[in-house]
């Protein structure tokens, strides 16, 4: 069974990455079949452990459809989130996450306004503050504190930063744990309906 809080946090990460991307690029609203994808690498620091846990992978976002998170190293795993369901694929085994449709909808509901540069929608779920606004150096930094009581039990705050595109997010958690995720090679492309179907299946 997939851990529900994990999915929520994952979604936050994804959201913040696109917050940065949209800030940096001043992107106009993205059309229906525009897919945004890129690479990530994560370092997880847990108190009491000498070395961080490192992982790498790719992400895909299709506004109006959903998001996909592909982990490549140290093992392969795919998580598909659409407006109605969440599915994880590990070792070619597909597993639906029951009772998570509300969370799935929340994620999709938040990503869409972000990509259409409707940043005010972020205020609904986060307390947003700008640490370093985009200036001549083209770098920026934002601080986000989740409003959700459930998420607050796990996360203290999130810092997102970047330049022309999102570079890094840091998630600080309870007990001095933290995740540092770096993003690279972000691309926006058009894809056909058949490709959408391939990625998201009928739920897409």
């Amino acid at each position, binding site marked *: *069974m*997939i*851990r*529900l*809080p*994990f*999915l*929520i*946090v*994952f*979604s*936050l*990460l*994804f959201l913040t990455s696109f917050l940065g991307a949209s800030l940096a690029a001043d992107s106009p609203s993205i059309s229906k079949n525009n897919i945004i994808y890129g690479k*990530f690498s*994560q370092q*997880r620091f*847990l*108190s*009491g*452990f000498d070395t961080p*846990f*490192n*992982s790498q*992978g790719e992400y895909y976002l299709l506004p109006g459809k959903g998001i996909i*998170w592909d*982990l490549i190293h*140290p*093992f392969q*795993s795919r998580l598909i989130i659409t*407006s*109605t369901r969440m599915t994880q694929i*590990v070792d070619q085994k597909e597993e639906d*996450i*029951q*009772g*998570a*449709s*509300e969370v799935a*909808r929340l994620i999709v*509901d938040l990503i869409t306004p972000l990509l259409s540069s409707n940043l005010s929608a972020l205020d609904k779920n986060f307390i947003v503050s700008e640490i370093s606004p985009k200036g001549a150096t083209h770098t920026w930094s934002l601080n986000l504190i989740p409003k*959700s*009581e*459930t998420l607050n*039990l*796990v996360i203290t705050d999130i810092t997102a930063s970047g330049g022309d595109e999102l570079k890094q997010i840091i*998630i600080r*958690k*309870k*007990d*001095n*744990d933290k*995740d540092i*995720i770096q993003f690279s090679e972000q691309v926006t492309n058009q894809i056909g309906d058949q490709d959408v179907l391939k990625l998201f299946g009928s739920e897409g």
Partner: protein
Amino acid sequence: MQRLFAILLFFLMLTFITIASWRVFSGKAEFVADIEYLFPKENPTQIEGSTLEKIQKSSSKQIIFLIEHSNAIKRKEAFSQLQSVLQERTTFEPTAISVAELSKIRVFQLENIGAYASDTDFRALQNEEYKPLVERSLRALYLPGSTINSKEFSQDPLGLYPSYLTSLQTQLSSTSSASASKSHHQLLIGALGPDISAERFRRDLETVDQIVAKLTSYDPQLDINYIGPGYYSREIASISKRDATWITSAALAAVIILLLLVFRSLKPALGAIFIITTGLASGAAVTLLIFDTIHLISLAFGSTLVGVVVDYAVHFYFAQRAGESPSLSSRRILLGLVGATTTTIAGFTVLLFTDVPLLSQISVFSIAGVISAAFAVILWLPALSQPPNSSITSNNASRARLFHYQIARPSLLAVMLLLSIGAGAALYTEFLPANDKVQNLRVQTPNLTERAKKIASAGGFQSNQLLLITGTNEEELLQREETIRSYLSKNKGTGEQISAVTLSHFIPSLKRQQQLCRARAHAYEAEVTAPLIKLVSKHTNTCTEITLDAKAWDTLPDQIKALKIDTSGGLSPQHLMILQGAIKGPSSVNLSEAFAWVKPIDLAARYSGALGHMRQKTTIAILTGILCVTIVACLILGWKTGFQVAVIPAFAALISPVIFYLAGGTIIFFSIIASFLVYALAADYSLFQFATKADDIDRTYKAVAVSSFSTILVFSLLSFSNIPVLQNMGAIVVIGVLIAWITAPVATLKHKET
């Protein structure tokens, strides 16, 4: 002396009406339309008594909303808006477990992290299937966004607690009060406070109407349907009031027109109005004086008293002769009137002993109504009348009467007797199957049916089932809940989704905690878990044991606390278990068969069972009553004459539900109650015809014919009512009265013989 008595009675009636009016206006007497008020009170000393009473109280004030919109975002917005406005402006609260409550549980559970594991993980540990658990934990270490925490990971390297939390949220979301699907959102709200008054509840419902109207007015695509026992009650109340008003008005108008046509004079019509008003006002006043809470169906049924009491006035005016003093006219119908009134009172008195509040009220209303109407005919009507210059009606019905009287043959009497016995046996043995489903009582209007259909098609909470688990102590109850959970998991059908919410999900039994502790310790020593355990240098196998003590109890959400039944009244310990998705599956059927300590709680089935029981009791009562009256009639009048008089009402009362059934009607508890009414009315016709003197025979014949016609007229109006009970009773009374009128000449065989 008679005049003094008449004046005293008049003032007594006025006093009753005044006090009753004061009780209504001061709020001492309350009108209700709740379905549970139709049934006898649950016995709190019985094992399910207090539980059922609690559930009845809370469910009677619940409303289910179905929110539909083609746009998912707008649907969700409407859902959130509705939820917050309802909480702000009404006493309704969603029955969902709030985020704050879940946070409170989490703090407590993290202190006792070793006590928790999902059923799936618990089984995996017991079966030593460690590999999937290890892989899951390793994945959580690397996956971006994982909520993994160093402290929790040290205490729980296999990740049993986060998995338990996800599983719990899944269980709660499938049985909670708010759910969402691809096409709709659902919300269950309830005025759960025990102190919510009927008035406050009514105001809240009006606020709900306004909120929904406002929300839907902004967006024509938004559709919000809502229904529930509380909503039904309000609709029944409104329909009952409307029906009582228009049935009374229409009945009154129909009777007046009939009397004007028959008597071609205004006086009898005015006299009839006076008798009807006296009967209805006295019936309503006495009911309001005796009962603090009056069911509106009893008022609607009481309005049909018009058809009964008008007969007394009809007999009076038919008996009047030219120049004869009105007192003498009233005395000439006295025997028939006393006999008819006594039989009606006897019939309705039986209803007083049915232990059903609604029937007791109908009984009191009818008895008070007919007594006052009878007194009004004997004492007040003559005082208000003048001796007529000519007979209001002539004694010239001979041709019609003689034609009709041809049926009065001993052979018909024998056939009626045999058919009565057959019909009685068919009703008693249920050869004619009855339908006791409580759903038959539901008010049917196109609007309500449409709403109910929509919400039923969305499924949702309607498939939630409550199970009552009994045991000797709390530990045993928790263990039994866990046994059921395990049983459901093993026995559910292919593709069957069964979710359960129990107290043991939050406070596992000590037995399970100990088993979990041992199984986990064993897992930490296994070879397959070594790579994971090696990562955690200081892992601990925390085995704190938790029980349902005050500290644990305080952390539980109210909805979970409600699963523990208050057994302070000396009952054995009981827990409730909410089961979702198993109503039609094989599991729930097997569950009560597999475990003697599990009882499904189905309010509808309980009500239906109560209706069936009351129907059987009432059938026995009417059969006993008929037998007793027949024996008394035979003893007083001789066996032959006694039979002649007694067989008519018995035949009409017993054969009418049979004919109704054969014509496609459904026999319900209230059909048998209608038979009582038929018996009382038919006895009137029989007794008036029997008691009449030879020179009044035509007058009485006409009076009975007019009375029957007016009764048929009034009860036919009931079939236009929106209340199924009244429709059913109206149809049976019409059939019964028609049969009674056709067969009434059998009572005059004595005239033939003499």
